[in-house]
């Protein structure tokens, strides 16, 4: 940690809002108390999470180095949470409401990345910044330096209202109903630290979009999503929002449901507050796996949920903040620095400028101005580059910078005439790469690089795809360029794989006692229409073969596309069975002796999580039998997708349930327990041997996946809608993944 930490408090005195300063002081005191052993691990962990100080991979003090799992030799026994070593590097998340930043803030983040991290800031899919490899004792100073430029990390993690996201083009978008920026800002700061948002069982995510067609804010994957609307009321044009609730990705994605077609601007904040009160009062608290708002809405039903929200609304005492900001909204969130002038078309326009302009420049609704996107590889930007962005934002615009949900940065209000000069300066800073928001600009969560939950290297895969696609003739074709690739390191969807044209999430498979990183391929998700629909997994492919899969899918789309057919329509037309058949040979994992590379992850030379596993002949045979049964389970889950594709909800639900039942039976058999013939008895035996013993518990999700199975069994004879059967298929896939991972864990523990 920095020896200068104590200097900053005095140095920044008077530059930090008193409330923010007091909160950081309190947090610093909590750190001191924890060091003195006067604060419980769980209490401290929640306190730091609420301040955005998150754990990072290997912070339990152990790391597998490719040969064996070794204890990292930290000299202190102090912890900063259950099983979390005090001195282990962590991550600091920095909330940036609607992604909006000014030059001073960019410079502050640049300084922090340099002095406390590794000189790189990472932009997330929620428009936050993240700094990695941070020492917990540096975090109060980091927070003070951020607070001095008007940034808070409060409620960046934990069971809180997370960063409020918004369309980065809000205010300059050609399709918007109006600029949602002031509303997003007002709601973000109204709910920040609000007493009604302090007792949630899980996080709560909010998004604002100016239109319903463009995907910039992804409203349908949010707990509370707002789409700008205008309506004539008594001859007056009124602003309001179409409000959606109960959406979310996570392990099993839920599409948000329409709550109200038009909530007036005056009612927006009180409605959010009322909903927060219902969520705090009735949301699940004990089982975090069913604690998101989506489960509460599903459990209560929309009508009852609305009744409860209205009941809360009626009880609220009026708060002047609900409407105080509205009189200022027409001032616009930002504006130009330089006069509007059109770009002079030149016959000798350089090719690199032309390519960059085609993909990275958006013509604003305001004549003569453009928004420029800076393509950041894997969402990463260096301190030096951040300072360049700050400089250019002062030179060419009025410091109008925003982070995007695609992990890039936009610079708004650039006079079109300035584009060539800006391009030249961006080039010097290596910030002028073309292809923003195209297939060569994949989104990826941190995955195994730094995340404790990562199963496969999402950044490794995305980085590899980025390099290969940049060289691919297929990827340069207009039909392919616009496709989106999103990669998550695990089923938790931080990389938003469900809403990509080509989505991937990390899983693992074993062969001959050795594990190999894989990715489930998710096809048919919809990025447009604010994340209009979700894709489904069609099969797991060894990590190293995913680029081949991408090439095969895109080449076939290019070859067989009919007129203006979209990628989603193409996938629907050829059907999931054909998609699966197209990739079947790629799913085969060669034995370690034949293809050792398949047993390491991208950009990592370590053997993938296998060093402490044995390869006994007997174990090999048993695993092989288990594998056959689990493969049969996967087939059934896939057949469920085919039934769903045909609109047969009952058959889809039945097959999904059968897939889980088969998986459960396979595990019983593998552990040499008698396998009953009756389903009730299989469930009971599975509960006794795998759930009650916690053998089937995921290290982070606990018993969630077993609960999917129990729920499916309980409700198997009830009628199923297509929506419910879709969810059951997702749950079946996750249950089967857990069968794979739990057998690996049990084998490892047995052999250790």
């Amino acid at each position, binding site marked *: *940690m*920095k*020896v*200068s930490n104590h*200097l*900053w408090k005095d*140095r920044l005195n008077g530059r930090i809002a008193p409330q923010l300063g007091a909160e950081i002081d309190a947090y610093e005191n909590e750190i001191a108390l924890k060091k003195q052993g006067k604060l419980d691990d769980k209490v401290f962990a929640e306190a730091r999470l609420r301040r955005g100080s998150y754990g990072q*991979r*290997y912070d339990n003090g152990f*790391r597998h*180095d*490719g*040969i064996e799992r070794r204890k*990292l*030799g*930290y000299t202190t026994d102090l912890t900063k949470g259950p099983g979390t070593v005090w*001195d*282990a*590097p962590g991550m600091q998340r920095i909330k940036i409401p609607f992604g909006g930043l000014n030059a001073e803030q960019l*410079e502050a983040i*640049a*300084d922090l990345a*340099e*002095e406390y991290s*590794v*000189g*790189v800031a990472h932009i997330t899919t929620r428009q936050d910044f993240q700094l*990695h*490899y941070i*020492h917990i004792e540096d975090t109060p100073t980091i927070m003070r330096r951020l607070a001095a430029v008007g940034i808070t990390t409060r409620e960046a993690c934990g069971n809180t209202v997370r960063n409020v996201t918004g369309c980065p083009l809000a205010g300059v978008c050609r399709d918007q109903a109006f600029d949602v920026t002031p509303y997003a800002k007002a709601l973000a700061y109204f709910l920040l630290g609000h007493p009604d948002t302090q007792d949630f069982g899980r996080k709560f995510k909010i998004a604002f979009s100016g239109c319903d067609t463009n995907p910039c804010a992804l409203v349908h994957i949010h707990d509370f999503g707002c789409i700008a609307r205008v309506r004539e009321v008594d001859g007056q044009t009124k602003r309001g929002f179409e409000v959606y609730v109960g959406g979310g990705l996570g392990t099993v994605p839920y599409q948000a449901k329409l709550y109200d077609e038009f909530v007036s601007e005056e009612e927006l904040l009180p409605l959010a507050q009322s909903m927060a009160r219902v969520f705090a009062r009735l949301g699940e608290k004990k089982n975090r796996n069913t604690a998101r708002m989506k489960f509460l809405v599903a459990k209560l039903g929309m009508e009852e949920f609305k009744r409860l929200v209205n009941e809360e609304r009626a009880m609220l005492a009026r708060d002047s903040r609900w409407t105080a900001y509205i009189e200022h909204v027409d001032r616009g969130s930002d504006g130009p620095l330089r006069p509007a002038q059109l770009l002079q078309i030149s016959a000798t326009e350089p090719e690199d400028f032309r390519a960059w302009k085609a993909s990275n420049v958006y013509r604003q609704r305001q004549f003569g101005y453009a928004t420029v996107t800076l393509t950041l*590889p*894997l969402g*990463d*930007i*260096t301190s*030096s580059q951040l*300072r360049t962005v700050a400089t250019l934002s002062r030179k060419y615009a009025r410091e109008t910078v925003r982070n995007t949900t695609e992990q890039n940065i936009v610079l708004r209000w650039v006079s079109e005439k300035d584009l060539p000069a800006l391009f030249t300066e961006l080039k010097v800073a*290596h910030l002028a790469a073309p292809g923003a928001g195209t297939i060569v600009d994949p989104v990826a969560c941190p995955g195994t*690089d*730094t995340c404790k939950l990562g199963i496969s290297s999402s*950044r*490794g895969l995305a*980085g590899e795809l*980025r390099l290969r696609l940049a060289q691919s003739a297929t990827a340069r074709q207009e039909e392919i360029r616009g496709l989106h690739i999103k990669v998550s390191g695990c089923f938790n969807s931080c990389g938003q794989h469900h809403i990509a044209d080509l989505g991937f999430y990390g899983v693992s498979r074993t062969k001959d006692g050795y594990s190999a990183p894989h990715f489930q391929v998710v096809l048919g998700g919809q990025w447009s229409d604010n994340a209009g629909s979700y894709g489904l997994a069609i099969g797991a492919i060894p990590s190293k073969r995913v680029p081949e899969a991408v090439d095969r899918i895109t080449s076939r789309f290019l070859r067989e596309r009919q007129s203006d057919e979209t990628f989603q329509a193409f996938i629907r037309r050829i059907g999931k069975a054909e998609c699966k058949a197209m990739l079947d040979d790629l799913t085969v994992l060669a034995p370690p002796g034949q293809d050792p590379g398949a047993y390491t992850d991208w*950009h*990592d*030379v*370590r053997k993938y999580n296998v060093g402490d596993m044995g390869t006994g002949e007997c174990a090999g045979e048993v695993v092989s039998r288990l594998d056959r049964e689990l493969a049969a389970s996967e087939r059934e889950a896939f057949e469920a997708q085919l039934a769903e594709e045909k609109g047969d909800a009952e058959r889809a639900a039945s097959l999904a349930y059968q897939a889980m039942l088969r998986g459960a039976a396979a595990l019983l058999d593998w552990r040499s327990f008698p396998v009953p013939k009756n389903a009730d008895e299989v469930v009971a035996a599975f509960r006794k041997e795998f759930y009650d013993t916690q053998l089937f518990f995921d290290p982070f999700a606990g018993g969630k996946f077993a609960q999917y199975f129990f729920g499916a069994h309980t409700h198997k004879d009830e009628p199923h809608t297509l929506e419910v059967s879709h969810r059951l298929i997702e749950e079946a896939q996750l249950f089967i993944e857990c069968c794979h991972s739990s057998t690996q864990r049990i084998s490892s523990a047995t052999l250790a």
Partner: protein
Amino acid sequence: MQHLSVKIFEQSGAELNSSSAIAVFHRWIQRGHLKELAIDVADYAHIPCGPGVILVCYDGSYALENVGGRYGLQYQRKSRLDVDHQQALRAAYDLAVAACQRVEGEPEFKGHKFDPREFSITWNDRALYPNTDESWAHVQPGVATFLDNLLGARQYQLTRTGEDRRERLSAEVRETPQGAAR
């Protein structure tokens, strides 16, 4: 004197291959080559002219990087070191040089050469060492003494790198022809 970074420049001008760097740093962890606690390998090679591949350790980190478009090995001290100015410089410099020698001995980096007489120093703490003339005047005598001992008096060129107040205080050191001819 805290939180110093020392970057020793690679002389051949050839790219420091990131795949090789990843393999080498993982191997150092596996074989316990470093005395300090090595935690993980971080790959940022996808950023042009960026921090490259980093071996993250508890007390500091080692990076085979390309910041400023110039390849080199950087050691960056993170944890507190209760020694005086020259000892802190010496400690950071020695760790960087030792790491360079180790890299040169790795088969993946055969042919690469790091010259310990050409390097940069960065004071990675804006509170203690802002990039000002006063700061520079404050640190310069200590740096000069360190360099006199290392390279010989007046046998080197010490240049402050830039005066942009936003950047960290930093300097480049190059042995002069007289020094090289010793």
